[in-house]
């Protein structure tokens, strides 16, 4: 009797797994759609922290590089977020925009999709010194899920200028 009920229980478990399994697998697959953030920092930068959503790196002369991805519940487009960023930095925090230009990087698991981006270069006086600040903003091409990737470079003077070209090349390796 006992062996019969045990057999019946295992049969039931198998049956349940057979029904639920595909659903669980599908959920797992969907959950993994958001690729981990990846970027190859330029030579001379040491990676300090790395996770699915951020990469923190610094050079020996304190030039700081930080790439992060954020969920975007509003699914805003690039124009909207560029404008929001500009308004916040210039109008609210007193940054000075030096230049800006469009960017494009591939993104997604197969890198088949292209994300539109915008690079903005600012200067700001804070903590008693003049800092240069490069921020690159990417918005995932599929806006339903909404994902934003931001790469920031912070530094002072010639050290910042020296690394700028290398960092710009590194930013083109961003995948998210």
């Amino acid at each position, binding site marked *: 009797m006992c062996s019969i009920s045990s057999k019946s229980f295992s049969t039931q478990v198998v049956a349940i797994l057979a029904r639920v399994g595909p659903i669980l697998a599908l959920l797992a697959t969907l959950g993994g759609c958001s690729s981990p953030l990846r970027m190859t920092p330029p030579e001379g930068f040491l990676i*300090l922290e790395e996770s699915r959503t951020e990469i*923190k790196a*610094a050079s020996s002369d304190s030039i*700081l590089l*930080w790439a*992060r991805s*954020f969920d*975007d519940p*509003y699914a805003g487009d690039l124009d909207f977020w560029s404008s*929001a*960023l500009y308004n*916040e*930095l*210039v109008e*609210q*925090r*007193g*940054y*000075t*925009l*030096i*230049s800006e230009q469009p960017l494009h990087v591939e993104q997604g698991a197969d890198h088949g999709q292209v994300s539109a981006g915008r690079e903005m270069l*600012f*200067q*700001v*006086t*804070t*903590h008693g010194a*003049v*800092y240069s*600040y490069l*921020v690159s903003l990417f918005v995932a091409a599929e806006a339903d899920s909404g994902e*934003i990737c*931001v790469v*920031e470079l*912070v530094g002072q003077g010639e050290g910042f200028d020296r690394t700028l070209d290398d960092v710009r090349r590194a930013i083109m390796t961003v995948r998210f």
Partner: protein
Amino acid sequence: MKHIGFCVVLLLVTTSCAGLAPNAHHSLSMAAARDSDSEALAGIVSAGTDAGRASSSGYTVLSPEALDDLDQPDAGAAARHDNTGTDEEPQSRRLLIYTAHLTIRVANLDSAEDRFLDLIEARGGYLERRENNTLTCRVPAIDFEEVLEETKTFGTVIAQNREAQDVSRQHLDLSIRLDNAVAARDRLLELLEKATDVADLLEVERELKRLTEEIERLKGELRFLEGRIALSTISVTFNAPARITQRSRRFFSRFEWINRIGVEYVLDQF
């Protein structure tokens, strides 16, 4: 000797007609030109007219050395011939004075001004005037565009204007007047050698003095004009970013991720 006097007076009439300062007290009947020195006078008139024609047909900016050389006999004619490019298009001979003004918002006034002055110095220019946050500089005209474009990268351009003033006609007029004055003075010097009467000598010398002063004044004007052409003027007003007061500043963006970016946040998190 009266003929020489006639010649001097007629010369005054000629130079006045050519654009030199007229002297009202010199007046004479044109019949005097029929006398024995009429050939000399005819030469003067002819020289002035030829100079005008030559200058009208084409010209370039004279160097300061060339201006000095105009003092030498026949050097003016040589310089004129140098400037008579007959096949050039009129556009290529256009003489322009470039000026520009920029208003730029920069993160730091001192460093922006230093960078601007370094740039000007590197291009062979100089600071002409400094008034509060406005720097007026002169740069070689050939570097005008590049200096302007590089200066724009210092910050956010709030306002800009540029102007190109065409001074071709003004330069041409001055050149013709100078040529005529030099030619007239050369003729007077020839007459001076022939003069024996004291009154004639005095009159010729007085007129020579006036012409010499006129030549120096015209050369000065030409030098000034050519300096303006050779060196463009760029004035830049640097503005500091508007100070964000606590009252006007929102403390947080409505969008969470924006609150977590920026220099202050990055410095705090590293």
